């Protein structure tokens, strides 16, 4: 994660993309530019003037603002309140602030409603609030950290329109992304970072995604295609009419009448915009939340009432969507993280009954995982926090696969993982699937979803609204179902075919 010899020049009025594998040093570089971390050597120049940032406040004063990947908004406050929070001195908190916000919103075509509550807004709207928040503070250079990760294709297009608006007004945008196609469509300049240093720049008009990827990893881009089907007719996981209600008085259904079957050797992919019930579905399957009605069966056995530990011992593997919250003990050494989630199983402990941990075997097995899954670390005694996101993920995948799961819940298994490791994780899932593993795959990466899945379902507001055949469907078609625009069985249609409406119902 150390950066060295970084060279980056952002021209005024352009969108400058920064691409690189995770752990390549993009985040560190951004932290330095935004004043969150100090460089050991080298200089930063803004408008011809050399600057040194001690804190984000210094960066903001110089017109550099950051839109974080994880939004930093207070749900219970309105858009206006969120925007003025911490910058009350600029235009107060009343009419002047409202005028300033509306003015900015109009000028850049953001369409922000100052009095809406954040909790009522969708992801794309929240992102626009974040952007406006930065503009309100007088930013002329915006850093966007993986802004498209949470958006469906249609929303991505809208975001790109906003970005073009920003640059036409003379603002500069630094755009961090993994998605090379997007980068090529929106960026004016591209800088590639690999292993902590800038390895090249590219002109979008003369570059293909594949060339860019090669520059990024120094090797070819893998594709997530499953070769042959391994789906059997032996059901592994059967979920029937699963229903989960929101806690409290509202009683809103977070999951409503969810039913599906995953057979041995089958990957069921779930597409959906984040926040439509995916998290709740995972929680219900792993046992963190108990269903209000419905049944979950694994290999014929009713596990609806089983606690989490029993489910994991019985062979549910879990790659969580938020690895920091659910997959790791960040300040514990790697070998303790290898025990996490499997504390009662070999090699961490003697067997199902028993009291003691077997630290020696756990440590030895951690070394094996580090070796086999190519976790880049100097040793197993370092804390999980000191690994890059991709290496943390490899450790988690290694841990879960080491227990030979019968059913794997994989939420965003390659999020934030570099291209090389991505191929490896896909391989592991495919291999386990060949041996009869049932997989529930949830991913925001539609290419991954389409490439790996045998069956696709679309989740929208807690319900399965559509299904599709991954062999023929395109990301765009899937995207429209994710926003609730289409339902039923999605059939791929060639444009101009004329019979589009027939199958979409």
């Amino acid at each position, binding site marked *: *994660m*150390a950066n*060295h010899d970084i060279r980056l020049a952002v021209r005024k009025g352009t969108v400058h993309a920064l691409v690189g594998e995770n752990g390549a040093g993009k985040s560190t570089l951004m932290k330095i530019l935004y004043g969150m971390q100090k460089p050991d050597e080298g200089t930063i120049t803004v408008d011809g003037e050399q600057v040194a940032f001690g804190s984000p406040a210094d960066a903001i004063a110089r017109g550099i603002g950051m839109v974080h990947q994880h939004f930093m908004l207070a749900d219970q406050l309105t858009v206006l309140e969120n925007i003025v929070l911490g910058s009350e001195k600029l235009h107060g908190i009343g009419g002047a602030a409202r005028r300033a916000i509306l003015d900015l919103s109009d000028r850049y075509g953001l369409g922000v409603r100052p009095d809406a509550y954040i909790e009522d807004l969708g992801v794309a709207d929240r992102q626009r609030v974040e952007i406006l928040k930065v503009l309100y503070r007088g930013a002329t250079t915006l850093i966007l950290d993986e802004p498209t990760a949470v958006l469906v294709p249609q929303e991505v297009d809208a975001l790109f329109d906003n970005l073009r608006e920003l640059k036409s007004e003379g603002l500069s945008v630094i755009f961090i992304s993994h998605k090379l196609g997007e980068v090529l469509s929106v960026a004016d300049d591209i800088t590639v970072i690999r*292993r*902590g240093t800038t390895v090249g720049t590219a002109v979008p008009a003369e570059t293909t995604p594949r060339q860019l990827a090669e520059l990024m*990893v*120094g*090797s*070819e881009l*893998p594709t997530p295609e499953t070769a042959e089907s391994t789906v059997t007719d032996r059901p592994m996981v059967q979920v029937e009419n699963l229903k989960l209600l929101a806690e409290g008085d509202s009683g809103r259904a977070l999951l409503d009448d969810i039913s599906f079957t995953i057979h041995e050797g089958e990957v069921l992919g779930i597409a959906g915009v984040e926040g439509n019930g995916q998290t709740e579905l995972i929680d219900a399957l*792993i*046992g*963190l939340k108990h269903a209000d009605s419905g049944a979950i069966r694994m290999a014929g056995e009713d596990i609806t009432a089983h*606690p*989490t*530990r*029993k*489910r*994991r*011992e019985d062979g549910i593997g*879990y790659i*969580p969507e938020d690895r920091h*919250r*659910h*997959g*790791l*003990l*960040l*300040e*514990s050494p790697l070998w*303790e993280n290898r*025990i*996490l*989630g*499997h*504390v*009662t199983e070999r090699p961490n*402990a003697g067997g199902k009954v*028993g*009291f*003691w*941990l077997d*630290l020696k075997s756990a440590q030895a097995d951690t070394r094996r995982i580090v070796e086999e899954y*190519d976790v*880049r*670390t*100097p*040793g*197993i*005694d*370092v*804390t999980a*926090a*000191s*690994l890059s996101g991709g290496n943390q993920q490899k450790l988690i995948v290694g841990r879960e696969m080491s227990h030979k799961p019968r059913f794997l819940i994989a939420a965003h298994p390659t999020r934030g993982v570099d291209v*090389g490791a991505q*191929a*490896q994780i896909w*391989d592991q899932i495919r291999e386990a699937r060949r041996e009869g593993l049932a997989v529930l795959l949830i991913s925001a990466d539609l290419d991954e979803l389409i490439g790996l899945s045998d069956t696709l379902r679309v989740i929208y507001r807690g319900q399965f609204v559509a299904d599709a055949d991954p062999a023929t469907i395109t990301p765009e078609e899937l995207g429209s179902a994710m926003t609730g625009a289409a339902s039923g069985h999605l059939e791929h249609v060639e444009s101009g075919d004329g019979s589009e409406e027939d199958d979409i119902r």
Partner: protein
Amino acid sequence: MKKFDRERVLLAVAGPVIALVVAVALTSVVLLASGKSPIEPYSLMLEQATFSDIQVLILNQAGMYYLAALAVAIGFRMNLFNIGVDGQYRLAAMVTAVVGTHLALPSFLQIPMLMLVAMLTGAFWAGIAGILKTTRGVSEVVATIMLNAIATSVIAYLTLTENFGVPVGNNQTTGVMEKSGWFPGIEVAGGEIYGFVVIAVLAGVLYWLILNRTRFGFDLRATGASESAAAASGVNAKRMVLSAMLISGAVSGLAGLPILLGDTHTYSLSFPAGLGFTAIGIALLGRNNPVGIAFAALLWAFLDKASPALDYAQPEAYDKEIAVIMQGLIVIAVVVSYEEVRRWGLRRQQRRVGEELAAAARANGNNGNNDSVKEVAAR
């Protein structure tokens, strides 16, 4: 790998050392401000520590602090703040004293029985807070503070003369315990060391074993480190909260026994109070580590027992409250320095891991980029 081990030790020691240095420096500032010598009180107190009778006092006091601090630390390890150690150990000592007065078994049964009574009483009192938290969501901080106050009233009621109380002069006691329940001490030059100090040491060993070598301990630590990750890994949070509170309470129950079984043999108005609050500072200073807590307990006991002599020092007397000021400053300094050292350590390790990997990558890169070849081949 060894390097990171050494680094962990360094980080573990850096926090308390910095805190102590800062606390001593600030105490000297206080002394200077009041126009006194900023150094002499320390040398006077250190001199006290060379006397064997003071050493015995320190050791005996430290034994009690140690048990109470272990009880606090068990809670801390899973983010539970058991402020109720104070009520738990006092109630447990009182009940044990009463049982020990009215029941006489042979010594080899009496002492374990009394220990069991103390642990059950402590666990019961802490368990109330545990059950309130798991069933009603009541913060254990609030519940245990309330329970401290209730414990005081319960003790006052039970030690009334019409209940179990026995007035002795101005004091209200619970009567003298049966001799079979007296814990044998260790005679040394400076006096008698409570035999229960050995139990305290054993408790420390057990604490370490359970936390670091058992599944239960792992679950407990995991819950403390990240509740969400622990839940996802299959820890039943409610059961864990209740278990931790019960164990913490049981250990609290033992905290009053060194003096009860080793010296006073009765629970009276002059029975030491406030141990449970002091123990919070000691557990903090000791980083919830059994060895760290031992040092912290000894340091605290030293400040307690070596400071009274300051009042009578010749030619110039000092206020013995200097030790209290110092204890307060240590607690504040500890909280600040631990957090700083922790962050610094994390950053430092992240950077070093990054550097080592970058170095390894460069070495690899000269070899015709081995990794990328491997990545392609893996397809």
